[in-house]
């Protein structure tokens, strides 16, 4: 029966090509716009590290004095001072912990024909790699001992490895960063968690860094920082070379706590640390600690750009207009065929059969519109990727969204077809036959 409906539907659609094309176009445009913006939303609001996100935490403390200019929302600063971060990390109360900060500096290729270029760097600690599941292709990450001894070593990204060593195993070779020779111990596979959750200073959707250097080493080679630095207090020494002792927050600490039961314990540890600092006069403001996991941290920072939300609403509005348009056209189309419906009804077709046939026709428009929508969404995403925002380069249609696109188109058009089909079924056979 369905095959017969399909045949009837195709024949009827062919009869009024322009109207059919118009309906398919409207559905395709609406679907295309929706799927483009929804894909962007889906990409930017995803969990950057699903396997680990509930076990990774970002401790915050309130180390400032009453006089700070940036005391707002009752929230502690977004970063830690070196002193506090090191104290917390060295206490090793979590399963893993890494202090880190962003950097940027010139890489001077050994081949002097190649110009120096700038890369983003991460100055961090050994636990960074296992904690964030960073995939290592060649060699290995460094050890805690190497952190301690401030070895002149580095782990580089696949991109940098391609650029400097044509993708070969470059472990044991040297990369010249910020004027210092660093021995490469590891090369990563492509890795780009998005959002760039562990450091939102630069851009929430920044690409991952190209070079990873032990934090101590980076300080020794005077690696430039790239991030923010908030200082408080008066007249103190605030120089880049001695930030370790300055009253400034400029590093991030991430910890991994595998057992959910221990999270409260860690928070108590933060409170205890903070109280202790207050007792010695180091901290002046009331104890105010936070321990957010990855997703809480992202929510708190409102990383999803507001424009993305507006775009989704806009596209949904557009889609509704397209659907209303399709309902109208379909109604017109079905009502024109009152005569045909009348004949079929008179010849014994049940109301349900006529209804099913008309809905099939709507469904075909939906399939065609969905396919068109996929093409338009691919085009839309291609346009998005040309946009200047950092998240733009992430906009790709995956299988889930592809399936969702087509399903949405079919469901939407079938729903849009229900009213016209129902109206057309109301035709009284006798009346239609009489006017013939």
């Amino acid at each position: 029966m369905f095959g017969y409906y399909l045949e009837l539907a195709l024949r009827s659609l062919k009869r009024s090509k322009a109207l059919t094309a118009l309906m398919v176009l409207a559905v395709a445009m609406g679907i295309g716009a929706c799927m483009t913006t929804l894909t962007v939303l889906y990409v930017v609001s995803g969990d950057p590290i699903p396997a680990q996100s509930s076990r990774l935490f970002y401790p915050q403390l309130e180390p400032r004095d009453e006089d700070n200019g940036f005391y707002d929302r009752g929230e502690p600063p977004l970063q830690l001072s070196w002193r506090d971060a090191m104290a917390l990390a060295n206490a090793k109360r979590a399963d893993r912990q890494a202090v880190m900060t962003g950097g940027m500096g010139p890489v001077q290729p050994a081949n002097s024909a190649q110009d120096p270029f700038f890369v983003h760097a991460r100055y961090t600690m050994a636990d960074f790699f296992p904690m964030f599941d960073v995939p290592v292709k060649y060699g290995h990450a460094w050890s805690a001992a190497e952190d301690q001894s401030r070895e002149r070593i580095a782990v580089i990204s696949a991109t940098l490895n391609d650029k400097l060593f044509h993708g070969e195993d470059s472990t044991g070779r040297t990369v010249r960063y910020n004027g210092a020779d660093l021995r490469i111990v590891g090369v990563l596979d492509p890795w780009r968690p998005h959002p760039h959750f562990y450091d939102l200073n630069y851009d929430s959707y920044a690409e991952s860094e190209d070079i990873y250097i032990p934090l101590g080493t980076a300080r020794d080679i005077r690696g430039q920082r790239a991030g923010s630095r908030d200082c408080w207090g008066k007249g103190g020494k605030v120089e880049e070379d001695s930030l370790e002792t300055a009253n400034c927050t400029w590093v991030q600490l991430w910890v991994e706590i595998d057992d959910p039961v221990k999270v409260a314990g860690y928070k108590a540890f933060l409170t205890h640390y903070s109280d202790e600092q207050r007792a010695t006069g180091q901290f002046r403001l009331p104890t105010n600690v936070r321990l957010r996991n990855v997703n809480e941290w992202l929510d708190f920072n409102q990383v999803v750009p507001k424009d993305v939300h507006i775009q989704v609403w806009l596209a949904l509005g557009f889609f509704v207009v397209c659907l209303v348009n399709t309902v109208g056209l379909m109604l017109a189309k079905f009502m024109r065929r009152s005569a045909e419906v009348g004949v079929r009804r008179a010849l014994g077709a049940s109301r349900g059969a006529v209804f099913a046939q008309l809905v099939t026709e709507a469904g075909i428009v939906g399939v065609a519109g969905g396919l068109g929508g996929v093409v338009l969404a691919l085009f839309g995403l291609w346009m998005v990727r040309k946009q200047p925002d950092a998240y733009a380069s992430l906009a790709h249609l995956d299988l889930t969204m592809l399936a969702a696109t087509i399903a949405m188109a079919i469901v939407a058009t079938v729903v849009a077809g229900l009213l016209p089909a129902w109206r057309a079924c109301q035709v009284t056979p006798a009346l239609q036959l009489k006017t013939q």
Partner: protein
Amino acid sequence: MLDIRPILSTLHRHKVTAVLLVLEIALTCAIVCNAIFLVRQRLDWMDISSGIDEANVVAVRPVNVKPTPDMHGRVQETLAALRDIPGVEQATLTNQLPLGGESWNSGLKLDRDVAQPAMHVTNYYGDDLIKTLGARIVEGRDFNPGEYAWLDDITSGRPDVVKPHVAIVTQFVADRLFHGKALGKTFYYDDIPMRIVGVISNLARPYAFDRTTMYGTILLPVHMTEGLGAYYVLRAKPGQSDAVLKAAATRLGSLDPNRIVMTKTHFSEVRDTFFASDRAMARLLVGVCIALLVITALGIVGLGSFWVAQRRRQIGVRRALGATRGDVVRYFQTENFLLATMGIALGMVLAYAINIVLMVNYELPRLPVVYLPVGAVALWLLGQVAVYAPARRASHVPPVEATRGN
């Protein structure tokens, strides 16, 4: 006006289709009004002045890969070399650029004993910065050479360093904190009383924490040192910025091969980057508006054609009874006008509803009333243009149709 009664009674018989068309026009009207309003907002924002001589300012950011022991001498030597480049009006080393993205900020206090600052501002450093950027002094004077101190001395924590005690503020800060009369007044910066010696016309911040305080800017008499994101900024004579930028970048490297140029840029590029995502959003909104209008127009054409086909006999009867072709065209035009009017009326209400949602969630201002008549006229025109082809086809229905069945 043409006889509206028969039109209304015909529409009454095609209630559902008519309602759908009205709904489509209403939604289009509401969305387009709001989208255009959003575009307007973006364009206004993108149009803000940085307060500097944008066409002629270029900037070069150096990075040192080796320690530089005598930073003061080095900066002075470099600046002398840069000012020596043909076509350079003025050059300096500054900590940040207007609309540059990276910013230095602090809180100003009017009362030393109040913990909460009266205003958050951005601070610019650099000698002769006003002249270099081409900013304009409205009142008072520029800094005197004796008032400057070096940044690294200030941040060294050494007690013997004499820190600056004068400042220049923007007109915006003067208005906000001193009711426009800032000259000679004092504010506290890092608990040091700072006397305002000059007021400049507005100079934009590097980064918009809050778009309403885009000109919350002060200048301090600080000699900047290299590093920390500092830029050498040069103002070229008109038309010479390309050559100046190129020469400046070369000169930085040739003075010290261990100094690598990280960025060299015209100010126009800085500005473009700053507004890039707003521009993209504005384009997208315009694109969606056009698509919406096209879809709506096609919908009108589609339904119009359907109605014409359905009413061939009725049209034929009217023609046979003496209606001219023009009468038939006008009939469909009036019909469309009525539908569009209903759609627009509903659309206005919807437009305000959407606007309220946007105001609550995205801190947008209220939709100005002027958008409504403009939107209405646009949709009326759109409807008339779209319905013209079906209406013309209707007018070609011969009177003899009246005698045919159906």
